[in-house]
């Protein structure tokens, strides 16, 4: 009995200490904790950028096809990159909301177009992935979904 009481008492002390530690951590938590989506909420109006390894003069005549195809859904600006890095290609959505662009989530469409525009300017074409013949399983479904959107935004 004595041992059991001691064990219960020790357990209670441990729980109390753990609870106090958690309260202390939460009290010092960054302000973003607990907010929907954390601190990394997407800002749809933010400028997105890629750097293209080509001189700015080559791009001033017109942005590469994949970005031009988004039309007035995006605003585009060019800027000389520092050093020998080429040209910064910046773009942002002109409309708020979640209306799809060409059937895609607007931010995904924008990021994907920037990546493809860079390839067209640097290489001359967009690299086609190998066609997949892999088998669909419940275990690989999350990876399939991730791959489906893997041309879009990547930062967690």
């Amino acid at each position, binding site marked *: 009995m004595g041992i059991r009481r001691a064990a219960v008492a020790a357990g209670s002390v441990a729980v109390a200490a753990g609870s106090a530690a958690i309260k202390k951590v939460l009290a010092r938590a960054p302000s973003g904790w607990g907010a929907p989506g954390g601190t990394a909420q997407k800002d749809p109006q933010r400028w997105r950028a890629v750097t293209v390894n080509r001189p700015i003069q080559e791009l001033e005549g017109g942005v590469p096809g994949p970005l031009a195809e988004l039309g007035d859904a995006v605003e585009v600006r060019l800027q000389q990159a520092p050093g020998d890095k080429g040209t910064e290609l910046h773009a942002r959505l002109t409309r708020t909301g979640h209306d799809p662009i060409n059937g895609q989530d607007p931010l995904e469409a924008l990021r994907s177009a920037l990546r493809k525009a*860079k390839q067209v300017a640097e*290489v*001359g074409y967009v*690299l086609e992935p190998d066609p997949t013949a892999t*088998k669909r399983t419940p275990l690989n479904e999350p990876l399939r979904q991730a791959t489906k959107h*893997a041309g879009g935004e*990547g930062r967690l």
Partner: protein
Amino acid sequence: MKGLVWTGVNELAVEDVPDPQIQNPGDVILKVSRTVTCGSDLHLIGGYIPFMRKGDVLGHEFLGEVVEVGPDVRNHRVGDRVVVCSFIACGSCWYCKHELYSCCDNGNPNPAIPEGLWGFPPGGCYGYSHAMGGWGGSHADYIRVPYADHGAFRVPDGVSDERALFASDAAPTGWMGADLGNVKPGDVVAVWGCGAVGQLAARAAMLLGAERVIAIDRFDYRLRATEQHIGCETLNYEQTDVGAELRERSGGRGPDVCIEAVGMEAHSPDPSYGYDQIKHQLRLQTDRPTAVRQAIYNCRKGGTVFVLGVFGGFVDKFPLGAVMNKGLTLHSAQQHGHRYIPMLLERMERDELVTEHLATHTMPLSEAPKGYKVFKDKEDNCIRSVFLPGG
């Protein structure tokens, strides 16, 4: 065609897979003549890099014959015998122009996956999971080679298939460790791991003028092969105090350059191995960095540590204090093979770089699952298993 596919954790099978097609004007189609296992494949097969799908074709080190060329290809013709760099790089982006080919901005069609993992995506790699582009692997009868003018290299007539095969990945990876590790004449260099990459890193250090090169492993047959074919000193870490030996063999200074060629599934006789293994198996850490810790701890003050072994995520008990307080330079990369392969083929032709002994087991592709078992379990003194498609 036939291909070796991943069918689940530690499960492989040779199955019918679709023939590759020219999809971009810079592509060639290669008939694979030789393709070889790599230690980093084991991380994929074992599920430690969880981006494989059932049916993915493995393999990234290979050579073969060009059988079809895209309309923009200038450097290759049908019938060329070429070795292909395992990393897929466009040759045009800023990284490629600065010879950081494995960092290519354009070679990975799934950039958002590695961006989430690592901040920015590396280039693509054949047969190396969907995080690295989902590219078809070389353990198959045929393979598509994108950006072929940059990634495929004609093999000189004087270099055999058996030797040139290792110019695809193991030799340039090893060379990069010594080159970017800044090995100089007079240096003492320690290399962790006597697999193909470790042996070829040791050989590269010797060719770059190192005074003394010491390779470390636990398998006697690998140590003997390193002594015999590479010509450097060796240490068995299960039979000797590696730190003490390295210190005294370098006059009490410690090696100038420490090259880690082991990767995320390292072993150790220390109690720390049990700790790492438990955390690894419970997926509380993704990688076991035993050899990296040793390389950092034993490197001389102001020296360089190069991490050649493949790591995928996060490690525990990383000795950042030693890095900082000893003023170490820590360097790492996936291989920038494009910058080294032509030079390595020339060295192979001059017999300065020999690799045939690494191919301890050669077999038809149909026996590839067995080849991986022999390779993984280090049965029958295996260093690498080589597969012959169509055989």
